């Protein structure tokens, strides 16, 4: 329902506004780093894979302008792209295809736009996943996504909670974040890149050491949730909001 607001000084408004909703003057973007001609800095890709509220709120908390969108032209126009997601891989891939987002995804990565994958978003940019009986994925990172198979029945699946991330390289997105800091994870499958040069950070769980951060060039992807990882996660997002996509 549209709410028609009451203005005490109605007569002082131009005739064309009377009886209508007052046109909203958009405030200037809160991010002082932004000076481009496009309307927003960060596109959060919406492909119906889970709740994007926490990602949006985390970006708002650091004053980064963002938009949740599934419009390929908006994604291609963005200065940076975040590819989040929780849920099942097969459904995520189906949604990406239906919304015709596979090509825009590949383009933003190949043209050097700073790109941040989170959780399921990180998993579906691999070549394939074991989830849902095996699903071919986007293929931006060589390798597969595998299921945890711990020998100890007390090792719970999903991994849910805070675990440490050992940084394998010095990366602009790790700036100001101590090596071995804890981040918040929720997942039953883990990324297994076939090219070790993609491994940026590692974490131990279920009898193995897996790549909890992968990336190359302008692509950076985490298995954990930076938007749920307290001040340290926020620091990573803040680094991302300033990153030029170079390492």
């Amino acid at each position: 329902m549209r709410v028609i607001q009451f203005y005490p000084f109605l007569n002082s408004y131009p005739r064309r506004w009377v009886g209508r909703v007052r046109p909203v003057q958009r405030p200037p973007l809160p991010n002082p780093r932004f000076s481009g001609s496009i309307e927003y800095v960060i596109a959060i890709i919406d492909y119906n894979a889970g709740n994007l509220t926490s990602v949006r709120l985390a970006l708002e908390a650091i004053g980064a302008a963002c938009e949740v969108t599934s419009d390929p032209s908006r994604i291609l126009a963005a200065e940076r792209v975040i590819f989040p997601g929780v849920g099942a891989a097969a459904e995520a891939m189906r949604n990406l295809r239906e919304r015709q987002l596979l090509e825009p995804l590949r383009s933003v990565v190949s043209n050097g736009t700073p790109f941040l994958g989170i959780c399921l978003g990180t998993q579906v940019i691999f070549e394939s996943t074991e989830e849902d009986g095996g699903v071919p994925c986007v293929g931006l990172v060589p390798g597969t996504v595998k299921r945890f198979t711990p020998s100890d029945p007390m090792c719970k699946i999903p991994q849910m909670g805070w675990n440490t991330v050992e940084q394998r390289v010095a990366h602009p997105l790790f700036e100001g974040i101590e090596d071995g800091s804890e981040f918040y994870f929720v997942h039953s499958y883990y990324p297994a890149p076939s090219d070790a040069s993609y491994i940026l950070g590692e974490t131990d769980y279920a009898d193995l050491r897996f790549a909890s951060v992968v990336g190359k060039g302008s692509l950076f992807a985490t298995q954990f949730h930076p938007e749920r990882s307290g001040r340290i996660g926020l620091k990573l997002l803040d680094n991302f909001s300033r990153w030029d996509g170079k390492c």
Partner: protein
Amino acid sequence: MLTKRIIPCLDVRNKKVTKGVKFQNNIDLGDPVEMAVAYSDGGCDELVFYDITASAERRPIDIEMVREVARAVRIPFAVGGGIETLDDMYRALLAGAEKVSVNSLAVTNPAIIAEGAKVFGSQCIVLGMDPVRTDGAAFPSGYEVTIRGFRERTGLDALEWAKRAEELGVGEIVVNSVDADGTRDGFELNLTSMISTAVRIPVVASGGAGTPQHLVDVFNQGRADAAIIASMIHTGEYTIAQIKAELAAAGVPVRKKW
């Protein structure tokens, strides 16, 4: 290494955090958003909010509060109380909650947790259960599940119900011992370890935390993956940093930087 989670529980009544003993004699403690920020800055790993009067007043959960908390803290939090339908779950998650906790509803309508897990993902759906000690022969585990804040017995065996909930697709189980709730005499270790060893999903122990040693015990003997605390920090007797320091000294892995 995955760390053990410390989760402050904020029972909310009339927009104020409150605390009672065995679900009675509640006193007001403060503003939920301010307390959430204080605990989050203090190093807690997660938060849980129960809108404890929502069910009784037959209204949905206070979404405005969920929204404010989501804006204020950057750690995961679960909400419960007044979740009756898939739509209620959706609105709480959209407002920024990481998880929704269902308790009485799961017993009266188990299909809703299965559906919720399917639609929103298992990790969003937490089963809360309030088991009470019983010696009836009908309960092999020795515990019976109660609902509506211990006011109603269900005839369900706690262990059977936990396994059933795992099959239905919940992502986590909060086991809140009615006998230990608010007593600060320690967790019900038998109950926690019995359920935690029987399921593959994380189990959160709740009820009875009074000292850091109680937490050491619930992680070691109780085999819990996370523990809920309330009175011991609400009263200011302990800080989360103190609790974590004692846990770390006892060899329990905890998150050290925040």
